[in-house]
C-alpha cells in the first residue's frame, strides 16, 4: 500500500517549484507535529529502545549491570536449538493458519455473497468470533477440548468416532493441530469480511458476460472472480501472516506453549525469556529477528504480487 502511495506522490511533488516546496514542507511538518509526538514517544521510542536492547546483555534485577555485547546475542540465537524449534513451530502455525483460514473464509464469503434467505442474520453470525477477545476464545476452546468434560470428546464418542477420551491440548502430536484449528476459527471473520467486500466489488457485467458465453460456474470463479479479487487476497493473506506469526494471547491461554514446548510460538518464547527467566537483551534479539523475518517474507511476497499485478 505504501509503495503505491509513494509512487504517486513522487512526480506530483516534483512538478511544484522549489521555494514553495520547502515552505510548504515546513508547514506540513508543523501541522503533523501534534500527531507525530505520540507516535515518536509511544511507538518509535520503544522500538528503538528494543533494538538497542538486542545488542546488550540486559537482565532483570536491581543489581544487574548492562553492557554492550555487539552481535553476540544474535550468535547465540543462531545456535540455540530451542529457538529454531520454536521458529519452526511458528512457521508451521503461521503458514497453515493463514492458508486454511483463507480457503475457509473464501468459501464462507462466496456463500454469504449468494442470495440466501436470512442472509443478514448469517452474516452477523459469521462475525461472532471477531467480537470476542482472544483470552475469552482461549478459555472457551479450552473447555471445548477438555479431556473429561469437553463437548468435543463427548460429541465424537456419541457419534462413535472415538472410543476413549483424547486430551487434545496435552498430547504431543495433537496439540499443535488443535491450536491451529482455534487460530483458523478466530481469524476467519476479518478475512471473510474483507473477501466479501472484495467480492461485492466484482462487476456483475463480467459474470453476465461469462454466463452468456457459456462459461461454467467453476470457470467463471477461476477466470473472473479470482483475478478480480487478487489485490484483496494479497493484502489480507499478508496481513494474516503477520498477525499469525505474532500471535500470543490465544496460545498463551490455550496451552502456555505446552506440552513440552510443542506449541511454543516465537512470541511465547520471547515472552518466557524476558519475563520468566529475565534475559531482556536476548528476548529483544528474538523480537528483532522475527521482525527481520516478517519483513523479508512480506517483501518477497508483496513485491512479486505487485509486479504480477502491474
Amino acid at each position, binding site marked *: 500500500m505504501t509503495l503505491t502511495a509513494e509512487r504517486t506522490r513522487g512526480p506530483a511533488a516534483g512538478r511544484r517549484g522549489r521555494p514553495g516546496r520547502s515552505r510548504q514542507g515546513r508547514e506540513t511538518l508543523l501541522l503533523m507535529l501534534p500527531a507525530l509526538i505520540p507516535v515518536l514517544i509511544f511507538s518509535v521510542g520503544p522500538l528503538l529502545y528494543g533494538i538497542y*536492547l538486542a545488542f*546488550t546483555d*540486559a*537482565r*532483570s*534485577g*536491581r*543489581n*544487574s549491570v*548492562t553492557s554492550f555485547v555487539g552481535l553476540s546475542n544474535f550468535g547465540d540465537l543462531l545456535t540455540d536449538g*530451542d529457538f529454531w524449534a520454536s521458529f519452526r513451530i511458528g512457521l508451521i502455525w503461521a503458514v497453515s493458519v493463514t492458508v486454511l483460514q483463507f480457503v475457509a473464509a473464501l468459501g464462507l464469503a462466496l456463500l454469504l455473497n449468494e442470495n440466501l434467505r436470512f442472509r443478514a442474520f448469517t452474516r452477523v453470525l459469521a462475525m461472532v468470533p471477531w467480537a470476542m477477545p482472544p483470552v475469552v476464545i482461549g478459555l472457551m476452546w479450552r473447555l471445548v477440548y477438555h*479431556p*473429561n468434560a469437553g463437548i468435543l470428546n463427548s460429541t465424537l464418542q456419541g457419534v462413535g468416532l472415538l472410543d*476413549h*477420551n483424547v*486430551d487434545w491440548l*496435552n*498430547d*504431543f502430536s495433537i496439540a499443535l493441530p488443535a491450536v491451529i484449528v482455534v487460530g483458523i476459527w478466530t481469524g476467519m471473520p476479518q478475512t471473510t469480511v474483507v473477501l466479501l467486500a472484495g467480492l461485492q466489488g466484482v462487476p456483475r457485467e463480467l459474470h453476465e458476460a461469462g454466463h452468456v458465453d457459456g462459461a461454467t460456474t467453476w470457470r467463471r470463479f477461476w477466470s473472473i472472480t479470482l483475478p478480480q479479487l487478487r489485490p484483496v487476497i494479497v493484502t489480507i493473506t499478508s496481513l494474516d501472516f503477520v498477525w499469525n506469526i505474532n500471535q500470543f494471547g490465544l496460545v498463551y491461554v490455550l496451552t502456555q506453549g*505446552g*506440552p*513440552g*514446548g510443542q506449541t511454543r510460538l516465537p512470541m511465547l518464547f520471547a515472552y*518466557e525469556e524476558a*519475563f*520468566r*527467566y*529475565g*534475559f*531482556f*537483551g536476548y528476548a529483544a534479539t528474538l523480537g528483532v529477528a522475527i521482525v527481520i523475518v516478517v519483513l523479508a517474507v512480506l517483501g518477497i511476497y508483496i513485491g512479486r504480487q505487485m509486479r504480477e499485478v502491474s
Partner: protein
Amino acid sequence: MRTRTALVAAATAIAALTAGCSSGDGGDGGKAGEPVSLKFLSLAWQKESVAANKEIVDEWNKANPDIKVEYVQGSWDNVNDQLVTSFEAGDPPDVIHDDSPALAGFASRGYLLDLSGKVPADLKSDIPQAAWDTVTFGDGKGGQGVYGVPFLQESQVIIANKKLLDKAGVSVPTPEDPWTWDEFEEISKKLTKGDTFGVAWPLKSPVNKALNLALNFGGTFFQTDGAKATVKVGPEEREVLQRIHDQLYKDKTADPSALGMGTADPLPGFYAGKYAMLPASVYLRQQVVEQAPSGFEWVTIPPLKGTSADQGAASQTLSVAADSKYPDQATKFISFFLNSTNQAKLAKGDWLLPTSVKAASDPSMTTEENGWNVATASAKNLVVAPYLKVNGFDEWKSKVATPALQQYFANKITLDEAAKTLVDEGNKVLERYNK
C-alpha cells in the same frame, strides 16, 4: 535498561529520604499522625483460605489503624511474570505471598529484602530450621540471606478409596509404619481389577513431583560445586522414575490416560471407582471433602518409604519487597500474620501443613477427621528440596525437564534418553546462570 535502573534508583533514593525524614522527626511516634498503607499480594485461592486471609487482614487493620493493609488478590498462574514487571517498574506490592522456588531467583536479583535479624525471636523459634532453609538463598553478590517467612508446606500422600481397599483386604498403614514402594506396587496390583486401576498418576507437571519423591531413594538431581550447579541423573535419581514407569507400562496398574492430567483432574474418575489410589498433595483432601458424592469413603495414606521417607519440601512464603517504602511495618505485619494462631487458620483454610510447631500441635491439626493426623505427621519427612538452591532451575524445569519427563512417562523415550537430555541439555541451560 540503564536508564530504567537509574530511574528506579532515583525513586528509591527519594523514598528512602522521605522515609528517613519522617522517622527522623520522632522515631515510631512520628508516624502516628501519618498512617501508612501497605499492599499485600495474596495468592490464596481456595474459598476457605481466601476467607481466612481476609479475616486476618481485617483483624490487623482494626488493631493497627496507622498501618493499613490492603488485600490484593493474585494468582499462582502468572504471579512471577507479574512480579518481575512490577519489580522492574519499581512499584511492587510491599508484602508478597509466593513460594520458595520463586524466591531463589528473586533473591539473587536483589528484588527482596533480607529479613535475617528482622524477624521477632518468638516467630523465629516457632518455625524449625528445616523450614528456614527453604527460604535461605544467595543474594547474588556472594552473601546469604533470609528472603521470606515460610508458613505453609505440602507433602505428598496417597488418597485412597476405602471401600476398594476393604474389598481387596488391604489395611491402612500408620504414619509410624508406612508402606514401602515395593508394598505399594504389590497393593496396586491387588487393587487393579476389571475397569479399576490400582493407581492414577496425574503427571501433567511431572518435575516437582518426581524431584520431591526422588529423595525417597536419595535422588537429588543436582550437585553443587561451590556456586556452580550441574545436573546428575544416577541410579538414585532413576529409582522413582522407573517405578512409576513400571506401574504404567509393565505392571499396568496405573491408568495411562491419567498421565496428562493436572493434580485435581482425576478426581471424577476416583469418585467413580476408576482408580483406587491417588498420589497427591495433602491439599487435595479439601476437594475430596467438598466434592465427593455422599457415601464415598476415603482415607489418607502416609507417604511412601524408599530407603527413607524423606520428601523434598518447598514452602509458601511471605516476603517484603526491597523497594517497599515501609519495610519495618511490612515485617511487623508478617510477624502478626504468621503467628501460630493465624498459621493454624491458614493451614486449615488451605489444607496444608503449617511450619509453626505450635500451630501443628493445635487439636484441629491432629484430629483423625479428614486425615489431618496423617497429613500433619508427614511434616516430619520434609527436608529442603535440593533444587531450591539451583539458580536457573525454573528454566531447566520448563525447557528441559518437563518435556523430557513427559515424554518418558508417555513411553516415547527410554529412561537412558531422558537422563541424557536432562543432563546434557540441562547443563547447557544452567551454564547461562553460572556465568
